[in-house]
């Protein structure tokens, strides 16, 4: 068993990055995730593993530092919160277009604009439907505990390299500031140049021997036929993600009449809602999408035939509910409940909403 610690979600992002052998972190501070870089600066990994930690002059600079280092086959990451991620959108589109692996953490706060520093999930659409321009997708992981903040950094790098695609960890202010028990992995070494050659030698720009053609990292292609081929290759990759990487957790769904769908900290709140509702004799289950892209549409479609309704619970105006509606395809009722602007609903409030939406007519 690894070392057990009590840590904040933000702190554990930094700790996990160092321990899994990350080569570089480039970022710019913003609430509610400033502890990520603070922790890295305190731990000074450049003195131990050799990991680079750099505070860039802006979010735009930091994402392009990630772009450059990822092109060299390095395991690199950045983190920010909502307005900062918007600034990064152009760079993220370029990284996706150039097919480079990296991990991007978004500890969401309320928007739009500068908004509030309190928790929110209003960047669901931005994270899962692009955010930058062009037909691209990020692989999006939604942690619901401090342990998952840790685990998803490690998993994030694995998936980023498996698909040569940016992976986003979509957290929120609750999970970032929450402190829980976490089991840390033992320190792993950073990849050596030989390992990088072996893992990414067929695309990374790591020095060209005379025996091969040069590698070019770019998203630019002036020939439309070639560009369409590039797009088809990306789309094939996203299809493969849908086939191989869907993750979710289903709690108390077997006998459920109603299923609540929620991700991240909203799912934690809804777990309690399920307990409260079941005490009242209402059979409620919970599906927690862990990957938001690829979305767990099959399991939702399966349950659509069995339940009287789904309730999507989000800290936004109703974004994921549209993905649920697509999966359900009119087979049963799909409702939404949420709060905005940094307000986090309590489990009782959600339970109330569930009764309002589904049970008032039945009673």
């Amino acid at each position, binding site marked *: 068993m690894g070392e057990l610690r*009590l840590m904040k979600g933000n702190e554990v992002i930094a700790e996990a990055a160092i321990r899994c052998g990350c080569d570089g972190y480039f970022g710019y501070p913003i609430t509610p995730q400033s502890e990520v870089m603070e922790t890295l600066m305190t731990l000074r990994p450049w003195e131990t593993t050799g990991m680079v930690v750099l505070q860039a002059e802006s979010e735009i600079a930091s994402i392009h530092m990630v772009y450059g280092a990822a092109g060299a086959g390095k395991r690199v990451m950045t983190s920010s919160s909502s307005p900062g991620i918007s600034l990064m959108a152009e760079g993220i589109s370029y990284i996706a277009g150039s097919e480079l692996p990296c991990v991007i953490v978004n500890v969401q706060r309320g928007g739009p604009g500068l908004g509030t520093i309190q928790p929110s999930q209003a960047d669901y659409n931005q994270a899962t439907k692009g955010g930058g321009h062009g037909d691209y997708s990020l692989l999006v992981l939604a942690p619901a505990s401090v342990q998952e903040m840790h685990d998803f950094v490690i998993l994030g790098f694995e998936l980023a390299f498996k698909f040569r695609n940016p992976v986003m960890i979509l957290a929120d202010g609750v999970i970032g500031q929450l*402190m829980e028990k976490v089991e840390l992995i033992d320190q792993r070494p950073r990849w050596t140049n030989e390992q990088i050659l072996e893992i990414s030698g067929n695309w990374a720009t790591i020095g060209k021997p005379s025996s091969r053609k040069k590698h070019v990292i770019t998203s630019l292609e002036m020939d439309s036929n070639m560009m369409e081929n590039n797009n088809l290759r990306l789309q094939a990759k996203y299809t493969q993600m849908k086939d191989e990487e869907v993750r979710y957790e289903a709690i108390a769904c077997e006998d459920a009449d109603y299923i609540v769908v929620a991700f991240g900290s909203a799912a934690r709140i809804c777990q309690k809602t399920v307990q409260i509702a079941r005490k009242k004799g209402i059979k409620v289950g919970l599906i927690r999408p862990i990957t938001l892209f690829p979305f767990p549409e099959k399991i939702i479609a399966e349950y659509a035939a069995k339940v009287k309704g789904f309730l999507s619970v989000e800290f936004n105006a109703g974004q994921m509910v549209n993905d649920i509606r697509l999966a359900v395809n009119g087979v049963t009722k799909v409702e939404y409940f949420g709060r905005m602007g940094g307000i986090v609903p309590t489990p009782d409030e959600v339970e109330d909403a569930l009764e309002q939406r589904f049970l008032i007519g039945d009673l």
Partner: protein
Amino acid sequence: MTEEIIIAGFGGQGVLSMGKILAYSGVMQDQEVAWFPSYGPEMRGGTANVTVILSDERISSPILHEFDTAIILNQQSMDKFESRVKTGGMLLYDPNGILHHPTRKDITILKVEGSRLAVEMGNPLTFNMIVLGAFLKAKPVIKLENVKKGLEKSLPERHHKLIPLNLQAIEIGQEHLVVVQTV
């Protein structure tokens, strides 16, 4: 066992660190724990509060409407959280600066003169540990030896010399718990 606690007072009273020590002590006792603070401008003064959950099982929501225990350290927090104690639950408060004392009849109400005792001890900073002591007397959810381990784990090495003082403050809190009403 699951114990859902809110600790609320002014920023600077040691509300968050009291919660942290409680959470660390829970870890030392092999429990599941969650610590969730109010964050943002509160850190610069004004009200601060933290939810601490200790449990033998996986913890669901760190955001709660009702609590088993409310530890209240100023009037604003009394106004906000008295109504959010579960029926049959417990409210522990420091009467210093409280104008409107709790009036509910369906909860246990306890008090401890934390700020006065801390001044008498000659160290106002021990205030939060006195209150923690009173809480642990009322609800012995954590063994004292695990609180000591929790202090060792949560305080940086350079502050370890302060652990005996903190333990003394906990003891004083335990001795000065006053029962106002029980249910």
